[in-house]
């Protein structure tokens, strides 16, 4: 199975319509132009659906980079 890291990159690339090769661990709302506030909400919707988790308000506000999303999802998967 693909790692959580790869799955998140795939998902961000698909939702924001940004080439996969242009995204990396440190990509964030600061570095990717399409990752604006609506783009971020779309990412949160898709992550919640894909990993069957509910993100609370703090998590939505704070998870604005690939690495933070990976940490969040990894923690969720371990706690299941």
């Amino acid at each position: 199975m693909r790692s959580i890291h790869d799955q998140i990159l795939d998902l961000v690339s698909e939702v924001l319509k940004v080439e996969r090769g242009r995204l990396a661990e440190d990509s964030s709302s600061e570095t990717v132009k399409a990752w604006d506030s609506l783009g971020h909400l779309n990412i949160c919707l898709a992550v919640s659906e894909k990993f069957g988790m509910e993100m609370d308000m703090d998590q939505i506000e704070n998870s604005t980079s690939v690495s933070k999303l990976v940490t969040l999802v990894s923690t969720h998967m371990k706690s299941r």
Partner: protein
Amino acid sequence: MKARLISNVTLDPITRHFVSLEVNCAPFDRYFYELTCTQTASSVSDYQVLLSILEPRVLFGDSLYTGAAPSRWFEYLKALEQFCRAHPSKLVVANTICLPALRYLNYSDVVSSSSLRARELEANQTLCALSNQYSNLIVVDLEPLFRKFGEDRLLAPALWYLARIPFSECMFRELAKSIEQAIAAYLNQSRKVLVLDLDNTLWGGIVGEDGPRGVVLSEDGRGRCYRDFQRLIKATKQTGVILAICSKNNWEDVKEIFERNDMMILNLEDFSAIEVNWDSKPQNLVKIAGDLNLGLDSFVFIDDNPVERASVTSALPDIFVPDFPSKVEALPTWFLENIVYPHFARYRITEEDLHKAEQYAANRTRNQVATNLNPADFLRSLNIRLRFEVDPLDRVSRAAQMTQKTNQLNVTTRRYSEADIRRFMESRNHSVVLLDYEDRFGKEGIVGLAILDYSKGEIDSLLFSCRVIGRGVEAQLLTKVESLFRSRGLSKIGATFISTSKNAPAKKLFSENNFTLVSASGHGTEIYQKELK
């Protein structure tokens, strides 16, 4: 098709989930302005469909906590009505209200006279009444989605309070699907024929081996799964779906199970075409299409056997052949979700839909008579009675349905919505003529349609149901058309034939009725004319 989405909340994430609609979102909370100020909103000409998807909790406002009448909802409905009236050619999609499950009145909400439940019902009834009044308004019901998936999966509280996004990804996906299916149903883009295998499909087991009473078909256990499946198939037939059988079997065994097994819900008369033999399934399906005079792209074929399915899929890719559920208890729900909703969806059910199966059955009897008589004697023996209706406003649905569904005997293949047809009927410059057919075998209902454009002096549309091919009704409708043009003081009629991949049968319609070919383009478009004496 292009669509404009208006809302009172942030619904932008739904746009990713549409397949056939190209959706453009209005700015946040501008729904009222867009509904009422369309003269100034230049964008109204840029789209064909208006999606008005409103979040009920916001529209209900304080009523959610007091049980008072939701005045904002009724103001919204007035604006919606105004838009539907002002723009009859736009398709408008609006959602019903589905309030949260937990309410301040808690256990008393079910019985209290000022309950939210009562308010919700009233609000939705008013919306549905509008849809019956304005044929260009489609209501999409949210309640089935909440029943199926549950509020916990469909609402997104954190996103709601942070960003006014009410729904989860699951809801956006399912809502987009419902909207597209409802629009397809409204436009009559559904398939027409459901072809069924028999053994291990309509019952468990093999009739040739287990015997007509030994198969699994009963009122409890596994047998009930098949029986409920049959009940649903029979109910689907009532909405105008044509049923057919395609099975490798001995006809005697099949006849026996239909006649002797009293657990059977379906009977042989429910099927408009039956192919029970040992030929290949693709061969038999082609034969059924020929018998019914319908294209294979209007077929769905259900068979439990993956090898048969694969042979049909590869030989006849136009037929939709779904995988069969591996667990028999899933059969009834699978049928509704994967077959009926996506392929046989209906928005309004017309009188013709209700009698479709009988019409095809009557046609079979006619064909049997036809093989024994020469053509002229056959026509005389039918005792055909035709009736013309000009601009009948109560037949708008059927007229639109015919322009959407008729492919073969159709000279211009122009597709019209109910709103378009209504506009033609109400316009002084147009007439919509419907041809109603009856003979000694039964009523066929409306089988022909012509749309006349007096300002251009031409026939905009002329089409016939393929069920009446070869019965001489084409000439009679054209005679009626000519008299209508003449009564407007016109001395000649123009007509156009636009070639498509399917309408070859309509190519000779004009020349056979004494129209003169004026010009023909390389793309198969022909212009005709006829002088009126």
